Every structure is written in structure tokens, then in C-alpha cells.
């Protein structure tokens, strides 16, 4: 009790008490990670003492990173008996897909939580190469490797004690909604803790947007950026190490590839605040089906040349890695999803 009163004491005025906390039957909450880094979990715990409010409202039935709770118990639960599932991570292996299907069946509301589940994020950049390429690098070519026999992971291995199994490694990483039906999206790498809290309050108060929506702002990072904007006309794209940017002027006007115009607001413009260009972790804003396309459009329109050859030179020299620049967080969730597979 003392803990929760302390929590109320430090809450700011904006923080609303979730109504379900007051005596109503507790809901069930699952938090799962698939192909991800664990940053989403840290961000969930970043709501600090408000986690106690979450605990008041929900029984946590599965949260591999933060609490006990067994997959086997979830398998035995009736369908739709979990009220809310926050699913982070992309679908890289058969185990990821199995858990996505399981949690979809058991959950009333499934939220694609964070960039990996929503659009593939950094693990999704592996869609620029094939499964064979990944195995070759990881198990044969990596300089820090000690694998003289060239062992690769097998889905089935016979040992004296019996058969051991590993999940199948998919050729193309999929997002959660390319695998199962998703109810809502919470973008960000990771989602900001304040946005997570707002989403949880929205769930508990039943004030959710229409199904299929992103829970959060509709506008762009540029809208929340305080830098001075004048006319955008650039003759060269600069890498971050090439210049020390002016602290006040728009970063894109200084030639840096800032993803602000193509990125959903929600972070509060954290990177531009510390003189670093936006890298687009919050995904595209409402109405943009493809992050890279939106960014390409925005960047192309500021190039100060009308000569095709000159435009081509500026782009090639300034943006050597198109996919890494335009799709750093969204390759798997983009319209093209991956690069062309070359027959091996």
C-alpha cells in the first residue's frame, strides 16, 4: 500500500488513474518478445512506479523478460481469455510464428508493440539478404568465429538422450501483421514509456481508436521539432560525421538526411534536440503506406538541381546505402518487403 500511495504522489497531473484499478475484476496481460532486442521490455519498465497501476489492473500471465508465467499455461487457457497482449519482435523463426498464432488466438486485443512487430525494424534489414547469406556470415565467415567443422544449426539433432529440436529459420522476416491479424500498433524503437502509459490508459478506459489504427500521434517529427526552418535547397547530402551541425537550423537544410518529414511524431523529437538527425524509428505517419517512399519524396524535393545527371550524382554520393537509409526500421514492413532473391 505504501508503494502505491508513493506512486500517486509522484504522478504528474496528466497521469490518469486507470479506472479498472478501482475494484473491478483484474484483466489478463501478456507481453511477449519474438525477433527483437529486449529494448521494448526496458521501455515498458520505464513507466517506473506506474507499473504498480498496471499490476492493479492486470494479472500478468506471460512476460518472459520480466515475470514468471509459462507458455504451457497459456496454451491451456481458453481462446480470447487474455485481455491485452503486447507483442514485440518480428517473425524470424517457426517458434516466433507459433507464439504469434498462439497469442493471437488467446488474446482479445493484440497490439503490435514497437517497430519490430510493426515494420520489422533492425532485424528486418536482414531481408536485404537471404537465409543462406545470413548463415554464411554467422557460422562461416565471421572473423571472431571458431567453427572448424562448419557446423550450422539443424532443426533436428539426434543425441544419446533423444532428439533435440530447433525452430526453422525463415528466409524472409515477416512483421506481426503479415502473420496474424493485429488490432493496434504502437510504433517506436522502442516506444517511448510515456506513449506506452497513454496506450495502456486508452485500453483500460476503452478509448481506443478504430481497429487497425496506430495508437499515437498522426503528424510527423518535423511538427514537433523546434529548429528554424527556411528554404530547403541542398546541393549535397552529408553523413553525420562530415559536419558539426548548427544547433538551431533545420538539419535537413544543412544537408543531413533527417527522417523527420517521413516519421511519425511521438518521441518528442529527441534526436534533433541533441543535434542528431531523426533516423525514423517511429515509422511512417498516417496516410503513408511506405516509409522509404515518403522519405525519398521528401529528400528528392529539396535537391537543388533540375539536371538528371547531377541529381543522380548527388544521390549516389550522398546516400551510398539506399535501403539502410530509407528503410532502416521498415524494410520487412515496406511494400516490397525484401530485396530480390537471387537463385543460389
Amino acid at each position, binding site marked *: 500500500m505504501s508503494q502505491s500511495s508513493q506512486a500517486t504522489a509522484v504522478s504528474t497531473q496528466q497521469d490518469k488513474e486507470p479506472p479498472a484499478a478501482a475494484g473491478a475484476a483484474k484483466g489478463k496481460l501478456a507481453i511477449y518478445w519474438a525477433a527483437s532486442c529486449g529494448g521494448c521490455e526496458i521501455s515498458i519498465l520505464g513507466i517506473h512506479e506506474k507499473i504498480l497501476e498496471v499490476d492493479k489492473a492486470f494479472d500478468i500471465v506471460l512476460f518472459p523478460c520480466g515475470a514468471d508465467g509459462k507458455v504451457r499455461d497459456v*496454451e491451456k487457457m481458453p481462446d480470447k481469455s487474455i485481455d491485452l497482449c503486447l507483442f514485440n519482435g518480428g517473425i524470424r523463426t517457426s517458434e516466433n510464428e*507459433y507464439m504469434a498464432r498462439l497469442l493471437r488466438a488467446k488474446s482479445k486485443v493484440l497490439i503490435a508493440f514497437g517497430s519490430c512487430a510493426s515494420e520489422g525494424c533492425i532485424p528486418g534489414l536482414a531481408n536485404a539478404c537471404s537465409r543462406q547469406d545470413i548463415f554464411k556470415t554467422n557460422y562461416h565467415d565471421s572473423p571472431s568465429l571458431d567453427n572448424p567443422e562448419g557446423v550450422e544449426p539443424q532443426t533436428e539433432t539426434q543425441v544419446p538422450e533423444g532428439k533435440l*529440436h530447433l525452430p526453422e529459420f525463415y528466409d524472409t522476416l515477416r512483421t506481426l501483421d503479415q502473420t496474424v491479424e493485429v488490432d493496434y500498433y504502437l510504433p517506436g524503437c522502442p516506444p517511448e514509456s510515456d506513449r506506452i502509459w497513454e496506450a495502456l490508459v486508452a485500453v483500460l478506459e476503452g478509448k481506443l481508436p478504430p481497429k487497425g489504427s496506430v495508437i499515437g500521434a498522426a503528424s510527423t517529427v518535423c511538427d514537433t521539432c523546434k529548429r528554424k526552418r527556411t528554404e530547403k535547397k541542398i546541393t549535397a547530402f552529408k553523413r553525420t560525421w562530415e559536419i558539426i551541425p548548427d544547433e538551431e537550423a533545420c538539419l535537413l537544410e544543412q544537408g543531413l538526411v533527417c527522417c523527420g518529414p517521413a516519421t511519425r511524431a511521438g518521441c518528442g523529437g529527441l534526436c534533433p534536440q541533441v543535434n542528431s538527425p531523426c533516423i525514423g524509428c517511429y515509422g511512417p505517419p498516417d496516410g503513408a*503506406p511506405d516509409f522509404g517512399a515518403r522519405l525519398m519524396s521528401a529528400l528528392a524535393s529539396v535537391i537543388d538541381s533540375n539536371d538528371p545527371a547531377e541529381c*543522380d550524382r548527388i*544521390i*549516389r554520393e550522398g546516400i551510398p546505402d539506399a*535501403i539502410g537509409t530509407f528503410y532502416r526500421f521498415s524494410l520487412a514492413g515496406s*511494400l516490397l518487403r525484401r530485396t530480390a532473391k537471387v537463385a543460389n
Partner: protein
Amino acid sequence: MSDTFEPKIVGFLCNWCSYRAADLAGISRAKHAPNVRIIRTMCSGRVDPAFVFKALSMGADGVMIAGCHPGECHYIEQNYKTIRRYAMLKHALRQFGVEEDRVRLIWASAAEGQQLADAINQFVADVKKLGPLNWPGHWQDAQDHTAALEAIAHEHAETMEVPV
């Protein structure tokens, strides 16, 4: 490539020049390949790279963008933005592994019906040489994972049961 392959091509034509050129080609009975599905946009500058990606991801074998000649844009200078966007788009498509000849930008004024018909014929012939794109085939897994998924469920039931 088999001779029977007829490429599906999506063409984004601007309202003021290229679409009228297409009209003129029709009125003057200029013959051209029927493979291009024409979508009229107000300006070639309206063609978001997402339109091109969407067409390719839904099974188009090629995409053509057509606008007014540079300097003759109905919206003064929007087709210069098209030039830059097209350069940016090609830069990305190269890395995706989409062949150079599958996406093409051409200019056709309202008087150039025949030129547009010729450009369409040339484009269709070039895409025919490349063969089908079938982009969704790149992300569809050749392997069926149903057995692997069922195996996980069986294994959980057999090995994860905690005795009470």
C-alpha cells in the same frame, strides 16, 4: 522467355500532356501495345514512389511514368521534382534488385501521340525481354512450415508439462 508472356504494365500519365497524348494516339489510331494500364494523375509530380512500389508489389512487371516535357509543366516546375524523385527511386530500386528497364520516365506533350505510342511499344518490348517480375514470389517462402509449427505444439505438450 516464352513468347506468350504479356507483361502487365502500370502507366501513370499526367492529366495535361501525357494523358492527352494517349488520347491523341487513340484518336489518330496510332497502334501501340495494349499492355499498359493507364492511371491518370494530375501531374507526374503526383506520382509518389509508393505508387511504383505498390504496383510492383501487386504483380506489375513494369511501371511507366509520363509527364510534360521539362519546362512545360502545367504546375510550372513539378516535373523537375519528378526528375529528382525518379532518380531517387531508381537508386533504391537498384539495391532492391529490380532491373533498370522495369521503371521508366518519359516525356510526351499533348501533341505527341505517336511518340507516346512508340515509347509504350519500346517499353513493352524491353520488359518482355526481362520476363515476368512476380515480386510477391520473392517474399513467399518456398518451404511449408505447417509441420514445424505442429511439432512445437507437440513438443510443448510432451516436455513442458509440470507435474502437480
